[in-house]
């Protein structure tokens, strides 16, 4: 099946220092790919380049022609001076969502935001704001969904529900997700494949459930720590 996203030789330099250093990967429909790595590894830089808000220094990013894309990131809250419903309407118009009112009603229910419909987004708790960002990200039922720490502010119960929703959305087979997280249990639960990024390079790639053992580590978290602290020992 044609990939939703193909990244090849992607590089971004800042003042001669590589933040992302020639990475290559694909995301297929029906697949959740985890982009893991310590702070400053280049995860957000990679996502920003895929989103088109940061120009690569080299390499290529190919999103399948006509594919619907959307994103949610912990550092990109929706305008706090608009209500939940207003935000969804504005971004629904921008993303060209058909039958927008019905879709907004559906998402408000799905993300348990109905009672906040007319509340300013800035007055919501961080968890509620995260749910709003996810609702916005799902407005156009994206075929490529980029999630940068999507459950960072959520309590465990809501986080589990959100993971289940996204997994079931991807299970329909039309969409692929690139997911960054520092929660290794979450990654094991949702990701079909992970890419370990450190100092701008992909050091490891594979199934998060078998990767630790194949590198002599007990858990994915142990492997993460090893990648973050001693990438050259792997």
């Amino acid at each position, binding site marked *: 099946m044609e990939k939703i996203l193909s990244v090849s030789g992607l590089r971004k330099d800042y003042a001669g220092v590589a933040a992302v250093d020639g990475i290559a990967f694909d995301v297929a429909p029906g697949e959740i790919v985890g982009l893991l790595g310590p702070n400053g590894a280049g995860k957000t830089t990679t996502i920003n380049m895929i989103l088109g808000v940061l120009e690569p220094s080299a390499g290529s990013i190919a999103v399948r022609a006509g594919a619907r894309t959307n994103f949610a990131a912990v550092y990109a809250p929706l305008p706090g001076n608009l209500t939940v419903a*207003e935000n969804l309407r504005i971004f629904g118009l921008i993303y060209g969502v058909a039958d927008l009112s019905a879709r907004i009603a559906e998402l408000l229910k799905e993300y348990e935001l109905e009672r906040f419909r007319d509340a300013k987004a800035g007055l919501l708790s961080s968890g509620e704001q995260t749910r709003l960002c996810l609702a916005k990200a799902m407005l156009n039922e994206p075929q490529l969904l980029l999630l940068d720490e999507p459950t960072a502010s959520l309590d465990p119960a809501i986080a589990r529900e959100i993971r289940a929703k996204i997994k079931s959305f991807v299970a329909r087979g039309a969409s692929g997700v690139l997911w960054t997280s520092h929660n290794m249990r979450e990654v094991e639960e949702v990701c079909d494949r992970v890419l370990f990024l450190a100092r701008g390079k992909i050091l490891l790639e594979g199934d998060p459930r078998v990767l630790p053992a194949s590198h002599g580590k007990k858990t994915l978290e142990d492997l993460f720590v090893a990648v973050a602290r001693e990438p050259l020992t792997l």
Partner: protein
Amino acid sequence: MSPRRLFAVVLRQFYLIRGSVSRVLPLFAWVTVDMALWGFLTRYLNKVSAAGLDFVATMLGAVLLWDFFMRVMQGVTMAFFEDVWSRNFLNFFASPLTLWEYLGGLVASSVATSSVGLVAMLLLASIGFGLSFLVYGALLAPFLMILFVFGIALGIMACALVLRLGPASEWFVWPIPALIAPFAGVFYPVATLPLWMRAVSRVLPPAYVFECMRAISSGAAAPRPSVLAGAVLALAYLALAGWIFEKTYRYAVRTGLIARYSAESVT
């Protein structure tokens, strides 16, 4: 260009204004105060002056058009600042919204907000102080258009400046009309200025508008070539503004400024 996406930018502005007294009042409050202040001043000048000039027609009319120009410019910059203040660039520019749809939305927002101010000014100036623009005839339309286009152009250039230098550079934007006013001959003929200032006036579209207004008010024939020169200049500024904003945006995307705008600089 998608009208739906452009409409979304305007709708965002409407939602913000609808729910906020601090955004509604400035649409007409300051221009109303300005009209009252200049209305009484020109009425007084008519009374004490032996020159036989109608200050209401010349000065109050000029103040009204100058205020309109400022409202147009600020209509663009205020809509842009809403995205600066709410750190919304990433959400907008990572979406299908194009740069030109975004700018189109800012301009359309400015049309709506500056129209409110214009209507408020026209009502107060005509009902309160007897100002009539009928004396300018059909030329009033090009006068308004030149000031509108130049206001949009300066607004877009100001947005580019803030995009390039970061949120704190907002301070640079507010004094722009005050810096231009002495050269534009709003209150006095350009001939009053020293030669070097007149040279600057020649490249400012509002100077042509206000010179024409004064000529018509004093009974002279309408200097149509001057109106045309003002219009051509205003359009040239608009094209330049679009080019500058596009270049600034490309720079911001290349350096990562869009994604990390609150950092103000990536160097």
